[in-house]
C-alpha cells in the first residue's frame, strides 16, 4: 500500500472523502444524484462548524487564529471606537518613541571615543569677577601633567572653534577657509583616537621651530583632497605656508565638532611660556578605574595653589571647573531634550489613559452580549480569551502604526531641529523604547478589555441580560474607574499645556526681546587675515590698511549702504573677548584681579549703523580716531548706568581697560544694550576704534539694498582682487544668527505645543466618552424622568457634574505638579516665571471650558430627547 503525502488541508480532504462515501451510499440505494448530494450533506452536518470545533481543540495556533479572526471582525464592526483607540495609542507611542530615540542618540549613546566616561574638560571660573569661563594658558598644561597623578594623558585646546580657521590653498582651486584646532601633541591620545592613515602628533612636532605638520579630518581629506591614499607625507598650503600632512582621522572622530584640521599648538615661544596668554582649556583622560570626584578636588587644589604662587597672573578667587566630556559635548541641549522626553512620556500616558477609557466603556457596554453568550453555552474562558484577543489586536495595530509614524516623525524632527545639537542626525527608532511603548499599550488595551469582561462574566446571568447596560453596582464601579481616568488625564494634560504655554510665552519674549541688533538683513563674514604662524602672522599695520581699503571699496560699491568690520560678530558663541575695566571715579578701589569684566569689541566707524545698534548719546567713531589721537571708547547703556550711579556724566568720563597699554580712554558715546553672547543674556559691552586697538577686526559686516548673495559675492570678489591668498567663510546674516540662537527654544515650543494640543483633544474625548457612556447606560432612567417632567437644565447639571468635578480636581493636581517641579525647567524660560498665576489660570480655564463643552454636548442632547422613542427602543 502506497503512502500518499499528507494534503495541505487534511480535514477538508477527509471530509470530502467522507461526503463522497455518503453520496455513493445514497446512490446505491437508488436516490437521484441531487437527492443523494442533499442527504449526504445533511448527514455530515455543517462543514464550517466541524472546522471550527476542530480548530477549537488545537492547542494555541488554531484557537488563537479563530479568536483573532473574530476580534478583527469585532474591530471592524465597531470601527469608531476601536480605530480611534488604535489611533490614539499609535500617536502617543510614536511621539514618545521619536523623542526617546532623539534623546538616546544625543544623550545616551556613547561618544565616538573609547571609555568616554574617563574624559574630562577643565577650565576655570572666577565667581568674584562674575565670569563663568576663565581660560587656561599653555604653561598650566605642564602644571596639570606634573601634579595630577591620576591623569593618563592631558592636552590643551582653544576654548572656541572660531578664530583658528586656516585658508587652504590647493593648486587649481579657490582658497577655502577650513576650521582648525591647534592642540598639544597628546590630544588624540587623550581622546583615544588613532589616525586611520599616517601617524599621530609626537613631542617632536610640538616645539618652537618644529617643521609644520597637520592632521586632516576624514571629511576634509575626501572633500578637498580627493581621498588621496598617498596623502601622508605630502605638503599642503595653509595660510600661505607649507604643512606636511602626517595623518588622516577616521570618520566621525572630529572633536571639536566642525573642525577639519589639527595642528600642533606649542610651536610659538610666546604661547608656550606666557601664563597670561589665556585662550585654552584642558582635556584629560584619567587612568582606568579612577573615581571622578577626587579628580575635581585635586584639580581645584592645584589651581588654588597656583593662584598663590603666581599672584601677579591669577586671581585668588579663581576656581577649577572640571566637566565630564559627555556633559560638555551635549552642553545645553541636555535640559531641552530631557524636557521633551518627559513631555512625550506624559503624552504617552495621556494617550494610554484615553484609549483605556474608550476600550473600557466599550467592554462595559457589551455586558449584554457577554451575558447572552454565556447563556447559550459559551465558556467563561472562551469569552475572556476573545476579549484578550481584541485587546491584543488593538495593541498590535497600534504598535505597528506607531512604529511607522515614529520613523516618519524622527526623520521630520531631525530635519527640523536646530542643527547645533550633536549626533542628532544619527537618531533612529530605538527598539527598547518601542518595546516600552508597545508593552504599555498592550497593558492598557488588555487591562481595559479583560478586567471589565471578567467582571461581566461574574454577573448573575439573568439580571445582566435584562438590564444589560443597566444600573448594577458593577456599572457604577466602571464609572468610578472612568472618572478616575478623567482625573489622571486632566492632570497630565494640564502639565503638558502649562509647559507649552510657558515655553510659548518664553519664546515670544525671546523673539520680541530687544537684542540691540535691528538690521537682521546685515550680512557678516569671517575675514580673518591669515599668515603663517599660529597667532596671526600678519603685520598689524598692513592688516589695518588692508581693512581700510577693503571697506572703502565696499562702501563705494553700488547698492551698499554701509560696511564695517568687527573683532567678533554678535552671537558667534559663548566665549568672546571679555576684558576687565576700571572707571576713573573708582580707580584703585579694587584689587586689579577682581575688576569687573565686559564684552570687548574692536570696531570700525559705521559699525553701529550697519548692525542697527542705536547710539543713545554722544558720537560714533570716525576716521579721525587714530593711533595719534586721544584714546576713546564707546560703552553700552548698562555701563553708562554704573557711571551715572557714581554721580558722574558718562560722556567724557574716563576708563581703563585691562588689555593693551594701560591708558585711560575717554567715553565718547553710549549705545543701547546689545546681546553679544546669547539672546537670553543681557551684558555690558565696550567698543574700541580699530586703529587704536591691538586685537584685529576679523569679521566684515555689510548691508545694502542688494540681495544677500550679491553682497557676499561682492565681498569675495573684492577680496580676491586685493589678496588672492585670503578666503572668507562663516557667512550669515544677523537674522540667521539670531534665529539659530533661539532655534532650540522655538523647536521645544512647537513640539510641546503639538503635545499640548494632542493632550487637550484626548482629554476632551475622554470626558465626552464617559458622559456619553453614562448617558447610554441610564437612557431608560433619564427617559422616565423626562416623561415625569424633569427640567432639562437640572438633568444636564446632574449628568455633567461628576465628570467635571473629577476633571477639575485633576487639573488642580496638575497645576500643583507644575508649580512644585517647575524649578527644574526655569533655566529654559526667558521672561516668564513657572508660577505665573495669570498663565496657569488661563491654562486651567481653557481646559475646563473644553471639558465643559465636551461633557455638556451629549448630556444636553440626551436630556432634550423624546422620552417615548428612548423607552420604545428597549
Amino acid at each position, binding site marked *: *500500500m502506497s503512502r500518499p503525502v499528507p*494534503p495541505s488541508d487534511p480535514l477538508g480532504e*477527509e471530509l470530502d472523502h*467522507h461526503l463522497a*462515501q455518503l453520496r*455513493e451510499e445514497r446512490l446505491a440505494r437508488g436516490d437521484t444524484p441531487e437527492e443523494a448530494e442533499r442527504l449526504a450533506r445533511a448527514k*455530515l452536518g455543517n462543514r464550517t462548524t466541524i472546522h471550527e*470545533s476542530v480548530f477549537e*481543540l488545537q*492547542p494555541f495556533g488554531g484557537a488563537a487564529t479563530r479568536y483573532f479572526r473574530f476580534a478583527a471582525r469585532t474591530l471592524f464592526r465597531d470601527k469608531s471606537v476601536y480605530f480611534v483607540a488604535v489611533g490614539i495609542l499609535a500617536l502617543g507611542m510614536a511621539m514618545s518613541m521619536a523623542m526617546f530615540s532623539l534623546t538616546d542618540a544625543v544623550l545616551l549613546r556613547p561618544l565616538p571615543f573609547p571609555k568616554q566616561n574617563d574624559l574630562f574638560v577643565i577650565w576655570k571660573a572666577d565667581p568674584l569677577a562674575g565670569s563663568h569661563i576663565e581660560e587656561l594658558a599653555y604653561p598650566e598644561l605642564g602644571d596639570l601633567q606634573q601634579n595630577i597623578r591620576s591623569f593618563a594623558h592631558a592636552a590643551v585646546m582653544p576654548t572656541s572653534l572660531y578664530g583658528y580657521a586656516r585658508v587652504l590653498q590647493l593648486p587649481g582651486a579657490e582658497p577655502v577657509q577650513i576650521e582648525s584646532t591647534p592642540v598639544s601633541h597628546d590630544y588624540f591620545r587623550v581622546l583615544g583616537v588613532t589616525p586611520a592613515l599616517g601617524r599621530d602628533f609626537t613631542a617632536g612636532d610640538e616645539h618652537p621651530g618644529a617643521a609644520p605638520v597637520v592632521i586632516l579630518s576624514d571629511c576634509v581629506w575626501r572633500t578637498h583632497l580627493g581621498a588621496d591614499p598617498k596623502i601622508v607625507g605630502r605638503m599642503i598650503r595653509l595660510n600661505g605656508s607649507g604643512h606636511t600632512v602626517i595623518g588622516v582621522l577616521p570618520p566621525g572622530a572630529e572633536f571639536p565638532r566642525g573642525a577639519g584640521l589639527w595642528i600642533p599648538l606649542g610651536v610659538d615661544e610666546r604661547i608656550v611660556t606666557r601664563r597670561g596668554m589665556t585662550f585654552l582649556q584642558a582635556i584629560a583622560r584619567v587612568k582606568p578605574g579612577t573615581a571622578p570626584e577626587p579628580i575635581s578636588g585635586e584639580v581645584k587644589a592645584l589651581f588654588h595653589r597656583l593662584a598663590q604662587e603666581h599672584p601677579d597672573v591669577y586671581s585668588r578667587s579663581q576656581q577649577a571647573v572640571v566637566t565630564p566630556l559627555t556633559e560638555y559635548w551635549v552642553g545645553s541641549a541636555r535640559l531641552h531634550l530631557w524636557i521633551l522626553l518627559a513631555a512625550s512620556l506624559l503624552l504617552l500616558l495621556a494617550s494610554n489613559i484615553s484609549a483605556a477609557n474608550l476600550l473600557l466603556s466599550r467592554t462595559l457596554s457589551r455586558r449584554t452580549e457577554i451575558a447572552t453568550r454565556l447563556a447559550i453555552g459559551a465558556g467563561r474562558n472562551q469569552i475572556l480569551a476573545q476579549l484578550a484577543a481584541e485587546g491584543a489586536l488593538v495593541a498590535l495595530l497600534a504598535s505597528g502604526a506607531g512604529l511607522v509614524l515614529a520613523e516618519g516623525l524622527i526623520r521630520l524632527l531631525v530635519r527640523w531641529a536646530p542643527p547645533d545639537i550633536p549626533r542628532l542626525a544619527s537618531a533612529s527608532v530605538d527598539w527598547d523604547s518601542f518595546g516600552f511603548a508597545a508593552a504599555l499599550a498592550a497593558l492598557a488595551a488588555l487591562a481595559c478589555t479583560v478586567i471589565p469582561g471578567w467582571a461581566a462574566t461574574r454577573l448573575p446571568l439573568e439580571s445582566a441580560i435584562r438590564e444589560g447596560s443597566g444600573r448594577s453596582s458593577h456599572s457604577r464601579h466602571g464609572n468610578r474607574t472612568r472618572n478616575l481616568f478623567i482625573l489622571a488625564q486632566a492632570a497630565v494634560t494640564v502639565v503638558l499645556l502649562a509647559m507649552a504655554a510657558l515655553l510659548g510665552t518664553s519664546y515670544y519674549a525671546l523673539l520680541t526681546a530687544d537684542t540691540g541688533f535691528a538690521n537682521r538683513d546685515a550680512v557678516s563674514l569671517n575675514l580673518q587675515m591669515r599668515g603663517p604662524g599660529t597667532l596671526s602672522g600678519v603685520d598689524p599695520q598692513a592688516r589695518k590698511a588692508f581693512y581700510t581699503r577693503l571697506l572703502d571699496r565696499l562702501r563705494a560699491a553700488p547698492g551698499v549702504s554701509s560696511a564695517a568690520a568687527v573683532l567678533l560678530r554678535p552671537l558667534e558663541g559663548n566665549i568672546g573677548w571679555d576684558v576687565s575695566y576700571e572707571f576713573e571715579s573708582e580707580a584703585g578701589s579694587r584689587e586689579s584681579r577682581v575688576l569687573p569684566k565686559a564684552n570687548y569689541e574692536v570696531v570700525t566707524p559705521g559699525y553701529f549703523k550697519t548692525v542697527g545698534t542705536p547710539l543713545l548719546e554722544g558720537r560714533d567713531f570716525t576716521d579721525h580716531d587714530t593711533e595719534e589721537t586721544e584714546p576713546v571708547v564707546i560703552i553700552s547703556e548698562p555701563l553708562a548706568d554704573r557711571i551715572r550711579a557714581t554721580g558722574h556724566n558718562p560722556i567724557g568720563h574716563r576708563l581703563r581697560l585691562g588689555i593693551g597699554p594701560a591708558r585711560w580712554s575717554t567715553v565718547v558715546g553710549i549705545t543701547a544694550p546689545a546681546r553679544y553672547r546669547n539672546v537670553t543674556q543681557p551684558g555690558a559691552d565696550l567698543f574700541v576704534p580699530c586703529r587704536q586697538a591691538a586685537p584685529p577686526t576679523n569679521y566684515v559686516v555689510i548691508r545694502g539694498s542688494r540681495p544677500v548673495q550679491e553682497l557676499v559675492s561682492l565681498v569675495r570678489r573684492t577680496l580676491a582682487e586685493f589678496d588672492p591668498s585670503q578666503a572668507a567663510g562663516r557667512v550669515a546674516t544677523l537674522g540667521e544668527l539670531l534665529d539659530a540662537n533661539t532655534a532650540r527654544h522655538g523647536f521645544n515650543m512647537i513640539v510641546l505645543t503639538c503635545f499640548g494640543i494632542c493632550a487637550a483633544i484626548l482629554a476632551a474625548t475622554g470626558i465626552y466618552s464617559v458622559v456619553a457612556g453614562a448617558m447610554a447606560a441610564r437612557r431608560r432612567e433619564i427617559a422616565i424622568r423626562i416623561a415625569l417632567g424633569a427640567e432639562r437644565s437640572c438633568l444636564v447639571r446632574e449628568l455633567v457634574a461628576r465628570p467635571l468635578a473629577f476633571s477639575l480636581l485633576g487639573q488642580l493636581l496638575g497645576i500643583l505638579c507644575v508649580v512644585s517641579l517647575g524649578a527644574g525647567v526655569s533655566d529654559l524660560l526667558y521672561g516668564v516665571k513657572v508660577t505665573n498665576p495669570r498663565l496657569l489660570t488661563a491654562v486651567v480655564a481653557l481646559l475646563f471650558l473644553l471639558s465643559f463643552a465636551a461633557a455638556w454636548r451629549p448630556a444636553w442632547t440626551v436630556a432634550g430627547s423624546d422620552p417615548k422613542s428612548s423607552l420604545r427602543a428597549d
Partner: protein
Amino acid sequence: MPEDQHPVDILQGTLNMLILQVLVQGPANGYEIARSIEQRSQDLLQVEHGSLYPALRRLETKGFIKAQWRVSPTNRRARYYALTPAGRKQVTLEHSRWRTLVQAITRVMRPAGA
C-alpha cells in the same frame, strides 16, 4: 431498525468510547467508523457524522489513536485511524466504567415498588 423503537442521539460523553470500541476490530476511516456505529446499533444510534471529527482529533491528541493516510478500497486517499496500546487499555477502562454506569442508572430508573 426495530419497529417499536425510535432512533436516539448519542449520549453526551459516550462517543469517544464508541469510536474506540469500533477501532478494536481494526483501522477504519471516518465514514467507516460512523457507519459501523450506526449498523451495530441497528440504526438506533444516529451519529451526526461531522461530530466525529472533533472527537477523533481529541482522541488523537490524548494518544489513544493514531492516524495515517492510505488509499481506500474505492481507490481514494483517506485518513485511517488505529488504536494505540494506550487506546487498547482505555477501551477496557471504558468498558468497566460503562457497566457501572448502566447498572447504577438501571437501579435508579427501576419503576417504583417493583
